[in-house]
């Protein structure tokens, strides 16, 4: 099955059709998508700023992550599900949009950045866990994460704006 056929099948599914043709389904799902994205970006940036060297409510980076990351992942799950539903309603159109492609690339980059941090930089976290002055690798991870997520938000807003200009969404 080609990508084109898969996307077509997706947007012809019963839920995609319901979202596309319903009056208020799309706005409701979109509202919760925005709420979830806002919480993902906001909570992640608290950790990012701690990694850059600004104090948070905990001294220990590991304990701060224990407080904050469950909230981030919960919000991320909601963002992913609602995002998929919104995407399904006009799958072919979104797939072809530069803004959508850029948003997905930034999202993947943010994921790779996070994985690299957890696998490499975080391995010796016990050495700097309580220090406000974090190592350069941790600062770099924090700064890249903040910029990548700001990029995700900007692409998301411009994406919605472009579609609204065309009379969609």
């Amino acid at each position, binding site marked *: 099955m080609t990508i084109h056929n898969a996307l077509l099948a997706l947007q012809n599914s019963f839920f995609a059709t319901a979202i596309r043709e319903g009056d208020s389904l799309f706005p409701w799902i979109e509202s919760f998508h925005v*709420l979830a994205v806002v*919480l993902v*970006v906001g909570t992640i*940036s608290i950790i990012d700023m701690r990694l850059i060297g600004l104090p948070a409510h905990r001294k220990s980076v590991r304990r701060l992550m224990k407080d904050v990351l469950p*909230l981030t992942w919960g919000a991320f799950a909601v963002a992913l599900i609602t995002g998929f539903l919104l995407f399904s309603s006009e799958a072919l159109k979104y797939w072809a949009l530069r803004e959508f492609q850029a948003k997905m690339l930034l999202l993947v980059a943010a994921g790779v950045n996070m994985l690299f941090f957890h696998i490499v930089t975080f391995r010796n976290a016990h050495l700097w866990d309580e220090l406000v002055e974090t190592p350069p690798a941790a600062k770099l991870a924090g700064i890249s994460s903040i910029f990548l997520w700001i990029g995700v938000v900007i692409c998301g807003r411009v994406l919605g704006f472009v579609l609204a200009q065309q009379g969609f969404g």
Partner: protein
Amino acid sequence: MDRVIAWLSATKMSATIQNTVWVIPAIQCVHILAICVVMSSVLLRNLRLVGLIGGGEPADVFTRRYLPWVWSALVVLLLSGSLLIIGEPNRDLQNFAFWTKMSLLLSAIILTLILERPVLHSARFWEPRPRRLIARALALAALGCWVGIVLCGRWIAYLYQG
């Protein structure tokens, strides 16, 4: 209200905001990023008051750490929000979602002040048992207001009959 809208629409600033394509989405991006700051700061501080996170860390640490972020991001929100209103006055000022959002914002600010003030004078103000329950209820109510604010914000676009 019609006169306010007519006057705002006629201002030079309104014309500039409307006629440059990228200005409105750019302001909206700033607006959303500031909401990220407010929502996450309020979420952490209020979940601490509810008792769900941050055990062992005194509640006033959360208030002192996160509320300054809330107040400064709110200034950014009011400024960017005002620009959006000036740019498209009839999108907001005759919109049910907009006025619901403003009422919720007022409630959220009042609730935040009620929860913040006493802590700045005595750190453990909300800790004795009867007060702890009040703080919990107020913190949940405030979170509900903030969630409503974000949802209404998106709905402004849909209730606007342009």
